[in-house]
């Protein structure tokens, strides 16, 4: 008589140190093998879209900072300001647009550092975590000198940025980039040829190009599976059309490819910031927009390349001081739904490696 076996349902989360927020994964296991994974979301729902309907266009800049993805506050502010500017036909000055590019790329590096550090510590590599956070701290210090905040800045304004760069900041930022680029090579050396790291990531959590497109996954997750799509190239905003940079694309679609894509993105971000610092024009940093601005009746959709992927905001205005409706297209949400495909067939020990590799932030998923 054969032994009877049955599938086991395992709850991972909602409080689990490696979910980077509060996410519950319902993992169905056959022995050690994953049969199915269902993400259960909603634990970090902050209702930011509804709250934005009750605040004016200017006040909402403070809200998108924390209501959406809290690690990339400046990228959130950027997409929101771009959407309102398109809606109201406001043209920010040249200098402000360069400053925005510098800050959103710095924020991209900071976000990728958090991802790399926390993912590496999930996989057991403590050194990378400490080194990544050391460099991230320098970026936060650079932010603090300009915006006054470290994570939540409220620095971008509709029609420009709030304050000009202080004296010496450009040189300081350049010095940081010179310091930072060799550090990326160090992370590379620590991980890329590390046999333990390779065993846990190479070939693990594969997802095909067709699946990525079907799930709407974007950003590094898509680019690691061969989807050569980057909003900065496909639909350039700000001054990205003047910047020279490459979009790293790999075909493998596994955790290791996603890691390599993000590592290459950090190098490209350094390249973009260097160009922006070099070409930074003088002049005004802010178009005059009243604090009680009203947007004309209509709607606008703007999408940008956030560190997690294609981040979009759709604003509908009925001509009042507050938006009529705001819809946020969150990249983490779509990326999370590619997770089920990635996990099928892997062992329970790979859950953490695969979940970490898509770089979700739960406040972005739930909004």
């Amino acid at each position, binding site marked *: 008589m054969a032994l009877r076996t049955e599938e086991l349902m395992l709850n991972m989360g909602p409080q689990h140190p490696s979910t980077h927020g509060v996410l519950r994964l319902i993992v169905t296991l056959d022995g050690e093998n994953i049969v199915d994974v269902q993400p259960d979301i909603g634990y970090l729902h902050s209702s930011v879209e509804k709250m934005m309907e009750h605040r004016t266009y200017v006040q909402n800049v403070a809200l998108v900072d*924390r209501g959406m993805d809290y690690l990339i506050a400046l990228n959130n502010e950027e997409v929101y300001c771009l959407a309102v500017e398109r809606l109201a036909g406001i043209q920010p000055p040249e200098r402000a647009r360069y400053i925005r590019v510098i800050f959103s790329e710095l924020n991209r590096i900071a976000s990728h550092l958090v991802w790399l550090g926390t993912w590496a510590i999930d996989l057991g590599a403590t050194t990378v975590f400490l080194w990544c956070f050391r460099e991230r701290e320098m970026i936060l210090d650079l932010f603090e000198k300009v915006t006054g*905040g470290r994570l939540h800045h409220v620095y971008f304004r509709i029609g420009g940025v709030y*304050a000009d760069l202080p004296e010496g900041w450009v040189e300081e930022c350049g010095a940081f980039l010179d310091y930072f680029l060799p550090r990326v090579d160090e992370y590379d050396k620590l991980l890329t040829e590390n046999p333990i790291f390779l065993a846990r990531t190479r070939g693990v959590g594969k997802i095909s190009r067709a699946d990525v497109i079907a799930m709407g996954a974007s950003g590094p997750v898509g680019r690691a599976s061969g989807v050569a799509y980057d909003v900065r190239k496909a639909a350039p905003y700000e001054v990205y059309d003047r910047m020279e940079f490459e979009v790293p694309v790999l075909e493998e679609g596994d955790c290791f490819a996603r890691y390599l894509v993000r590592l290459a993105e950090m190098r490209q971000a350094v390249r973009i910031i260097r160009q922006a610092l070099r070409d930074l024009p003088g002049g005004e940093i802010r178009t005059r927009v009243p604090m009680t601005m009203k947007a004309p009746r209509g709607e606008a959709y703007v999408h940008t390349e956030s560190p997690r992927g294609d981040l979009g905001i759709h604003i509908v205005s009925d001509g009042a001081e507050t938006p009529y409706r705001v819809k946020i297209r969150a990249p983490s949400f779509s990326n999370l739904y590619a997770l089920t495909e990635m996990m099928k067939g892997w062992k329970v020990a790979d859950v953490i490696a695969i979940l970490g590799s898509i770089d979700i932030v739960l406040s972005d998923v739930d909004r």
Partner: protein
Amino acid sequence: MLRRKVTVKYPLERLDVSNRFHGLLALPIDPETGIDRCIICFQCERICPDRCIHIEAEGKGKERVLTRFDIEMDKCCYCGYCVEVCPTEAIVFVPHYEASTYHRGRLLYDLQDLRRAAPKEPIARGIVGGGPR
């Protein structure tokens, strides 16, 4: 390995913050008049995204005096809009950031608290000099 340790022994020593740092809010006293600079225009109350500023005044014209200026620091999101809109730089950020208390009620800063919080020497008044308002 032989480098100096970088750890800051936090409660005993502190890191310097930048002069644009969004710390706690304060109403500094104008040394010329001996009173704060608030002209009771209610702009900060109106712009606050969290609606955490409450202002009341009495009297008319030049006699008008501030009777209430409360900031609910537990609601405040440190966005700095109040500092930005203030026409007289009456409300400012101070570099102080340790606001934790044992009682929630103590996070309601009234006029006296806000005046007391202001440092004696001049401080960076939020972010100024940033082009046109």
